[in-house]
């Protein structure tokens, strides 16, 4: 056999002949890596959900203005749910501190949409809100065509698609992708009043069409042009002489000078409004993440300690079992460093293998758990539980190898300093 190949075979045989035992002993590290992958996925999802999906994406100069007592944005009109009066919206729009003011409205109509697919139809109740197209400028493709026209353009928050698909799947419809849904025709039914007062009970039917999708606002409903909501409210007023109750629920505003933000916030608070800036959202996200991190780090610390102790213990046992071999190697001319390295390389190899297995295993669990969660709780369908990518892979392999190497270091030092003559005389 070629001398180099024989040497390579010899080194592998010499160093890896007992590796199965080390593999079994180091099994605990797999749990640490699995948990690490799951932690990263949940962390990313929470940050994305908190910072993006739930509280919307805000730039540093953007603020969210809410009614004083509102904890979240309420898109469905119900008794006792606060709103921003029209005159306050006008006041805010007139303030010179803003370069852009985008109020989001809600309507007093109960709205149902009816969609047909493969010969079947489905009607569902759905909340809606109204925005001006200038709010969508640069944020939604084709924003210019988002105005009161026939068919009425509808923007679907990405958050809503999963829920819609969930409803559709219950009736045997296939899941629809964003691409499938663009241009999808729906019938909208606007209802208000009570049937026992027929003069005020009205039903209006409008044809709508899916215009686009956005993650700009995330709520389980649809976004319609404000001018269309005003038009429908005006029609009701003409028909009955009563108002349907158009209200503003939130204002997205962009300040001229972000340094001036504290004084602008003060002004708005004096007007009886609540303000959330990027800072507030970051703070909320940070607090939530601190909690998530705390829980995960506590659990991971336990895994880490258990892994290190078990690996340390098993390597110490291996050193004891192989003490004669290590001593003999030293006598035959291996240096302390070579003994140390043989151990560390073995530990690093085992760690790397468990890192790879942990990475793929963790993602498999996440995918499986994500599917099950989405079936049970529809809203989880929009939360992507994945922790893939080269960086995560490298982290998994790196952490796993490092933990194994650190755990094996002391036993390796012990092996390299073993009492040689006592061992070889066994």
């Amino acid at each position: 056999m070629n001398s180099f190949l024989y040497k390579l075979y010899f080194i592998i045989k010499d160093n890896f002949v007992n590796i199965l035992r080390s593999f079994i002993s180091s099994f605990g590290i797999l749990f640490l890596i699995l948990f690490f992958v799951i932690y990263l996925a949940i962390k990313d999802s929470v940050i994305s959900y908190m910072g993006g999906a739930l509280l919307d994406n805000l730039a540093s100069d953007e603020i969210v203005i809410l009614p004083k007592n509102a904890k979240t944005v309420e898109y469905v009109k119900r008794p006792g749910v606060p709103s921003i009066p029209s005159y306050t919206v006008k006041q805010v729009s007139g303030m010179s501190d803003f370069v852009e003011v985008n109020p989001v409205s809600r309507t007093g109509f109960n709205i149902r949409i009816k969609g047909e697919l493969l010969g079947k139809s489905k009607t569902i109740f759905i909340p809606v809100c109204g925005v001006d197209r200038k709010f969508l400028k640069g944020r939604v493709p084709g924003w210019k065509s988002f105005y009161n026209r026939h068919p009425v353009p509808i923007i679907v928050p990405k958050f809503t698609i999963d829920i819609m698909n969930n409803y559709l799947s219950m009736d045997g419809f296939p899941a629809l992708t964003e691409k499938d849904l663009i241009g999808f025709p729906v019938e909208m039914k606007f209802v208000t009043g009570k049937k026992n007062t027929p003069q005020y009970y009205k039903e209006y039917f409008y044809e709508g069409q899916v215009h686009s999708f956005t993650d700009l606002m995330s709520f389980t409903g649809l976004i319609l042009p404000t001018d269309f909501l005003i038009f429908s409210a005006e029609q009701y007023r003409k028909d009955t002489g009563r108002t349907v109750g158009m209200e503003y629920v939130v204002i997205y505003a962009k300040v001229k000078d972000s340094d001036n933000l504290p004084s602008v916030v003060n002004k708005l608070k004096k007007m009886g409004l609540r303000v959330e800036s990027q800072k507030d959202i970051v703070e909320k996200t940070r607090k939530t993440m601190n909690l998530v991190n705390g829980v995960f780090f506590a659990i991971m610390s336990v895994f880490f300690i258990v892994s290190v102790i078990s690996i340390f213990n098993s390597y110490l046992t291996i050193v004891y079992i192989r003490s004669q071999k290590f001593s003999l190697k030293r006598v035959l001319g291996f240096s302390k460093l070579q003994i140390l390295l043989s151990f560390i390389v073995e530990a690093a190899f085992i760690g790397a293998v468990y890192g790879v297995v942990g990475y793929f295993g963790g993602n498999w669990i996440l995918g499986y758990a994500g599917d099950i969660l989405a079936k049970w709780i529809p809203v989880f369908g929009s939360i992507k539980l994945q922790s893939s990518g080269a960086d995560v892979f490298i982290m998994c392999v790196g952490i796993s190898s490092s933990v194994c190497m650190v755990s094996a270091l002391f036993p390796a030092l012990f092996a390299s300093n073993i009492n040689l003559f006592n061992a070889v005389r066994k």
Partner: protein
Amino acid sequence: MLLTVENVSLHFGKRMILNNVSLSVDDGKIIAITGKSGGGKTSLLGIISGLLEPDSGRVLYKNKNILRWGDFRRSRFRNREIGFVFQFFNLLPDMTSYQNIRYPSMIKFIPRDVDREIRDMAASLNINEILHQKPMTLSGGERQRVAIARAIINHPRLILADEPTGNLDVVTAAEIKNLFVRLKTEERMAIILVTHDKSLIEIADEHYHLEEGRLLKVMHEEAKPSVKSKRTGVNSEHQAKKAKTTQAKTEVKPMTKVKQKR
């Protein structure tokens, strides 16, 4: 001088293991060291090979103090200049005889035809039939011959043998003894034998006794002519027979006194 041990002392706790021990070994010489179990003989081999650190003294190999060397250089010294032979053979059980013999050459990264060398050596040591067997399947004598082959694969100049016949029957021990004589005469290797085996002591050029930490030279009145006869070319078998039949009268003197006499 190949190896000189100068005034080496070693304590384990309060116990004095080696007390001002001095020893010289030249190429082609066999030195036998006897002494009580636990008397420090193996520790002396450990110090000579750089595996143990003495409390004081020097170990000069080709006039260089090995105790000043770092671990890497000492390891290389052990690999290239020293061959070890042990009482319990210390072969790696998961490797074949061939792999055991080849093991030290794997550390010494010098391109050479090790495979051919092993086969020549195996033929010479009569172990060519067992090269691909694992140590568990070999007899004691075969294992020791494999261990000797491993010890000399890197052509060392010094063999340190710790009770090499201690675990062998008389016939096999005689074979191993002859092997040491061959290594001395044919390869000009220096051999330090730590032993209780009288027949091994008889092939030694010098005999030392380690007692209470002091190394004392043993003068064999009857053995002196046999040493002389080796120089005149009488074969080793004859010497061994002669040594067996003669009752050696020994006179123990401290090393320092021996030097003074000289």
